[in-house]
């Protein structure tokens, strides 16, 4: 079912939705860019549709809304523990087609990998409803078409701004509110069919020959192991645990789970001080293999969804898209 909204009507819709949901979208965070007097497009709760940034890609991905950077799991004392409580409200998140595909990747690792689902992920994930923002044109770093992630059917509603009105295709209305506030009209969401760059994705990388490839030495000399490429990534799922014993009473404390990154020091540290992948080139290789080989081997789809955020974030101008393309072209050449 399709609907048309004036800005005022969409804002009434938001107001009604916000009674039971927190609504998150990419917004312009004033002065929050890393350089002085610069802004950042990032996720924040919204109350007005005008606050949503449609014409830029968010720097950070939407995953922080339902998979928080720091999450308190439970609190403990000498007698036992009590689980953290999550917000009663549901979550509605505005995101792109590639981002929705990335949520599906996170679901695979968090819910389908192993005998039981990740409880703490699941309890927030179950509250999530997705509103896909149409991509009317591709941004500079996108390569979703090459990754086959430029489209999605997996959304409650779509939204795009066209000639001053908001157009939605609704697959699963939320409490009938879209129908209540909107005016019925035929709508189908728009997804890009081509990007400014296309990437040759390798089909069957062989670990031994990839490991011997000299490109990792080159990347190793450029990469500073800052981890930006992974923290901005919508499909990176790694986390670590932190047990805190409160200063004033070390018998009480809490367990937190916090994002981690294979690019950052400490990721592979083990008892006895042993550590794999000390070298930045090896870390880059591991990340690339995870993104375009290992994950697919296990789950049948590539982990990377081609959103290009890692390219935008890398301070050393390392482009994953370019790296994938290099590997893909080398593979094709070798096959003759």
């Amino acid at each position, binding site marked *: 079912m399709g609907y048309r909204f004036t800005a005022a009507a969409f804002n009434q819709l938001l107001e009604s939705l916000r009674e039971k949901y927190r609504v998150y979208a990419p917004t312009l965070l004033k002065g929050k860019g890393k350089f*002085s007097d610069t802004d950042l497009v990032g996720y924040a709760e919204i109350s007005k549709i005008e606050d949503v940034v449609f014409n830029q890609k968010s720097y950070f991905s939407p995953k922080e809304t339902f998979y928080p950077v720091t999450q308190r799991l439970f609190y403990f004392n000498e007698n036992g523990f009590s689980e953290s409580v999550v917000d009663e409200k549901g979550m509605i998140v505005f995101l792109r087609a590639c981002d929705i595909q990335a949520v599906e990747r996170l679901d695979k690792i968090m819910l389908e990998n192993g005998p039981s689902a990740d409880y703490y992920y699941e309890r927030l994930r179950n509250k999530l409803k997705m509103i896909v923002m149409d991509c009317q044109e591709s941004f500079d770093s996108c390569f979703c078409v090459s990754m086959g992630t430029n489209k999605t059917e997996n959304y409650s509603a779509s939204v795009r701004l066209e000639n001053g009105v908001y157009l939605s295709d609704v697959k699963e209305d939320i409490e009938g509110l879209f129908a209540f506030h909107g005016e019925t009209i035929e709508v189908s969401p728009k997804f890009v069919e081509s990007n400014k760059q296309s990437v040759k994705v390798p089909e069957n990388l062989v670990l031994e020959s990839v490991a011997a490839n000299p490109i990792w030495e080159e990347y190793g000399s450029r990469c500073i192991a800052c*981890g930006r490429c992974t923290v901005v990534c919508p499909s990176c799922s790694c986390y670590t645990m932190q047990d805190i014993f409160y200063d004033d009473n070390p018998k009480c404390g809490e367990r937190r789970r*916090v994002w981690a*990154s294979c690019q950052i020091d400490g990721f592979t540290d083990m008892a006895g001080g042993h550590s794999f992948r000390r070298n930045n080139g090896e870390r880059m290789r591991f990340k690339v293999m995870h993104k375009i080989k290992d994950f697919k081997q296990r789950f049948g789809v590539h982990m990377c969804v081609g959103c290009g955020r890692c390219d935008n974030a890398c301070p050393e101008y390392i482009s994953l898209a370019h790296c994938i393309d290099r590997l893909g072209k080398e593979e094709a050449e070798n096959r003759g």
Partner: protein
Amino acid sequence: MTINTKKVMKNAWRITKDRNLTCLRLRVPGGHLPVKLLPLIQEIAERFGNGEVHLTTRQGFEIPAIPFEHMKEINVLLVPFLEELEVNIGVLLEQPAQGYPAAGTRNVVACIGNKVCTNAVFDTTALAKDIEKIIYPNNPHVKIAVTGCPNDCVKVHMHDIGIIGQVEPLYDAQRCINCQACVKNCAKVSTGALSIVNYKVKRDASRCIGCGECVLKCPTGAWTRGGQYYRVVVMGRTGKKNPRLAAPFLEWAEREAVLRLCNNLYDYIDKHIDCSLPKEHVGYILDRTGYPVFREEMLKGVELGPKAKTANYLDFAGYTYDKKCLFD
């Protein structure tokens, strides 16, 4: 030939080693120049000078080898330059067609700031222009400089008033992944103000100098930029007696306070200058009055803001040229 050297110099023309020739000094507040003014510099140098222009240490131009008789004519040609760089930013010039009305107070210099530099905490040129508006035209020999961060690329430590940008870093513990990039970097390139406590970061505000390195290094945006403030260093100098680095006077001062301070400097000079000398440099006035008097008069009517701190004493580093002490 008869000329009044004092008037000529006040009009930003130099007395030079060639008795017949002068040299025109152009000021560029904040060191940023719209290129549409370059043809005028070229025209003056080609028509009246020797076709050359010197780039000064104070981010101005000097057009050499101009016969004194052309001063009046060139002053008229300079109107667009003065309009664009002085009048348009709010400097009051009563007769722009007569050239620069004063030359004692020097051009306010600035590093390129956040127009380009990733480290810069603020727009240095904009502040330099606001300062120019307050202090120009004026005769006392005063040098002011503005720099975007504590790297001090423009060397404000060699100035009477040096202004260094500071940013208050804001920490969102929720976003921190304990990568320690900020902690390691602050210790390595700055002051070691950060440490890890329970996997999260603590900032020792008394050590932090507001360089913003932590914000630049943080991958998750746990550190972001809060308010913009300024560290003010004073009375640095070169010269034949006692070169020294400017000493910290204020930190975490607000913009309005900095502007007010520049204004107060002139009242202080006015009150204490030794008029028996042809000119007296303000640093030597401070040497005579002492810091408490300086501090009181500089801070008169200044709202420092809640975060500002004032130095207990001026911690100068320098030396005297006097060879008797050093070499004999």
